[in-house]
């Protein structure tokens, strides 16, 4: 079920009313209802893969229980490996089988030997990368004795399958989300209103900003060799807004929906395009995944400690793995490697933790220095996004060489005026709200209600006037 579908518009109020009016009497009933609703939400897409989520839940619940009773270090390690093998094995099978088969065949072909191996016809279960990492974080935290294993199976299944963030995150840590299932939720009006506001902003980001940009990007990148440099450059810039609007929009809807049910999820995006360097960008982009890799991969590898070679190695590992997490394609690996290249100079010069505050804190306009830093960081991310968007490396190369030629100064083939106007308004609202959790969190709090409501209505109107006429899935569903 898509957040931007009529199915969800019907599903959400029904589930919400039942949750607060019918199952409100007991904690167990609330959690059971959350699980049932989540399974219905996921099963709407493909019920066959519900068994995978259930299987992952059972495995990690049981391993967590075993770990709580096990003092022997070797046996504890064995249990952790068992969880890793099962979870990553499933992820690997569904997501990476064809990539390894195809790469294997290509490698032999490179040496002049043709081997006949067929690609497998495997459907990628939506959200598998997200819930796998979520359950893994539970087992790893229990193994590290940073989290008490749960005895409550229903709470645990609700934690793994919680529908607002099941298919595209934020990837929640068990230490944040699981304890919230131990306490009965009580309705909080202000929290619910805040949730609705965040949902509205998420829908605007997805249905207006991302989908309008997507239309342009798809046309511009369909056959880069036929397009002018200016069209391709705009395509690359618009893709940066498409991917941000799409994914952060999803996260806003997920966080807002959770708030309606009385839950607090972690922030996933913190205005990444206002970053002043790449290190700051990665502290602000897909925060739940970046911190996951930081805590469970980068730090165990030694992090930024050790000699120069180790620092370089660890940086490349974390960025390339992060790229590979997105999908089984060399384009994602190059995207990760490029980000590592952008990040390394900052790390080696120990300047990766310079910009920990908000850009131009407390000011309406950015300082000139901040503006230049923000623009140059954005330019680097746009360049890297070309690989992320491209179908393969040849396609990416065609886009890049297509941009850098004399037609760069020509008039773009497709009119970008509306998109540029929407992006301008969007960036302005985001900039003015950059010190909040999300852009419109506090917009208009001091305004009279009619004006505040008119502002929200303006957002609703722009959705109705500029949305796509057919349902468009979220980009991150494919990951």
């Amino acid at each position, binding site marked *: 079920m898509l957040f931007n579908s*009529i199915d969800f518009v019907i599903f959400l109020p029904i589930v919400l009313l039942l949750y*607060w*009016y019918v199952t409100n009497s007991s904690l167990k009933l609330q959690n059971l209802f959350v699980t049932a609703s989540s399974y219905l939400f996921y099963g709407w897409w493909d019920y066959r893969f519900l068994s995978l989520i259930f299987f992952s839940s059972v495995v990690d619940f049981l391993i967590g229980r075993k770990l709580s009773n096990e003092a022997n270090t070797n046996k504890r390690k064995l249990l952790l490996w068992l969880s890793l093998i099962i979870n990553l094995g499933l992820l690997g099978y569904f997501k990476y089988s064809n990539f390894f088969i195809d790469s294997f065949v290509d490698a032999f072909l490179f040496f002049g030997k043709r081997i006949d191996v067929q690609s497998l016809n495997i459907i990628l279960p939506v959200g598998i990368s997200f819930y796998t990492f979520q359950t893994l974080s539970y087992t790893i935290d229990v193994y590290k004795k940073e989290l008490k294993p749960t005895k409550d199976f229903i709470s645990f299944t609700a934690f793994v399958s919680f529908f607002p963030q099941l298919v595209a995150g934020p990837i929640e840590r068990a230490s944040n989300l699981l304890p919230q299932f131990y306490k009965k939720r009580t*309705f909080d*009006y202000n929290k*619910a*209103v805040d949730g*609705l506001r965040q949902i509205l902003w998420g829908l605007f980001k997805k249905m207006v900003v991302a989908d309008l940009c997507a239309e342009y990007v798809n046309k511009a990148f369909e056959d880069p060799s036929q397009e002018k440099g200016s069209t391709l450059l705009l395509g690359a810039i618009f893709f940066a807004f498409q991917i941000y609007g799409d994914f952060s929009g999803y996260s806003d809807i997920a966080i807002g929906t959770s708030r309606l049910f009385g839950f607090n999820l972690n922030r996933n995006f913190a205005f990444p395009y206002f970053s002043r360097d790449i290190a700051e960008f990665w502290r602000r982009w897909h925060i739940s995944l970046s911190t996951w890799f930081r805590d469970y991969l980068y730090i165990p590898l030694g992090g930024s400690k050790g000699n120069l070679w180790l620092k370089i190695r660890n940086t490349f590992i974390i960025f390339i793995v992060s790229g590979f997490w997105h999908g089984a394609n060399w384009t994602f690996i190059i995207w990760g490697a490029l980000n590592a290249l952008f990040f390394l100079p900052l790390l080696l010069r120990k300047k990766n933790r310079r910009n920990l505050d908000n850009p131009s804190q407390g000011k309406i306009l950015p300082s000139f220095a901040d503006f230049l830093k923000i623009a140059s960081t954005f330019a680097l991310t746009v360049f890297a996004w070309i690989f992320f968007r491209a179908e393969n490396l040849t396609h990416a190369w065609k886009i890049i060489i297509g941009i850098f030629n004399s037609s760069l100064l020509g008039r773009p083939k497709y*009119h970008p*005026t*509306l998109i540029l106007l929407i992006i301008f308004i969007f960036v302005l609202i985001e900039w003015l709200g950059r010190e909040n959790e999300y852009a419109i969190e506090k917009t208009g709090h001091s305004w009279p209600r009619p004006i505040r*409501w*008119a502002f*929200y*209505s*303006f957002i*609703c*109107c722009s959705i*109705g*006037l*500029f*949305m796509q*006429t057919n349902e468009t899935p979220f980009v991150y569903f494919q990951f």
Partner: protein
Amino acid sequence: MKKLLLKTGLFLGASSLIYIVSVIIIGEFAPSMFKKNISYKIGAYGHLNTRLKEAKNTSNIDILFLGSSHSYRGFDPRIFKEHGFTSFNLGSSSQSHLQTELLLDRHLQKLNPKTVIYEVYPNVFTVDGVESTLDIISNEPNDLGSVLMALETFNIKVYNTLILSIYKNYTGYYDSFKEPKIKAEDTYINGGFVEKEIQFNSPSIKQSKQLTISPIQLKAFQRNLEKLKQQHVDVILVQAPINKNTYQSWENIEEFTEIMNSQKLPYYDFNKTIKLDDSLHFSDHHHLNQVGVKLFNKDLISTLNRDNHFDQMLAKDSDTE
């Protein structure tokens, strides 16, 4: 929770009003780039506005033609008149069965035909009906039927256009609008027909494709047949000729033929019987030019004569006398 429900309800109400006003303002005054989801096209193409106005002043005809552009560009009332039949063409561009249903509700009683020639273009059974809905809600005053039809298409562009169209009807724009009879290559002929300046098609290879029949369209089609049956109108299903390449590109055309045959009505697929030239008799890959129209209509009339359909019509005449 009650407070939240109440406030949300109030907000949605207020917001809906603002939305309606915004659609009208943007539809009336904004540059076209802001009208991505508004498509008000009164008198845009196919002379639907003129046709629907003429339909209101027409009654008691022998033959009513229904269907897509193959109908209003393919059945020429002048040729039928030469054979002694009065007729009217109620086709419109990409008219799907949902729109045919609405047009029948509005015009069937007054037109009061003895026979309906229902043009069945396979593609029309696969579409969402958005294009034709936009066409009809822009070119005829709207009523509850338009709202129900718009709801069935489930498309934001249709909803926005309906809002603007209702406003335009209310302000008298529809009544004051006069569509020219000659527009570019098209000339409107009384009786609902549109004659295109003679053009010839350059045949091209078409990619094979499957026809995926929409259950919504099929149900609407069957409702239309039932409606006509209840009005004691004879129905003849006709598939008008198109280019061979286009026709042969439908891999499962025989499934479509089975569906038509299962309606237990006379069904004629002229792609299987008439011999036309893909270039000389067509203006594009699926529309006949006037030379093709004449040949097709002549063949249709002789086929219907051969199978005694006109005798039945005359028998009806004598019954009513």
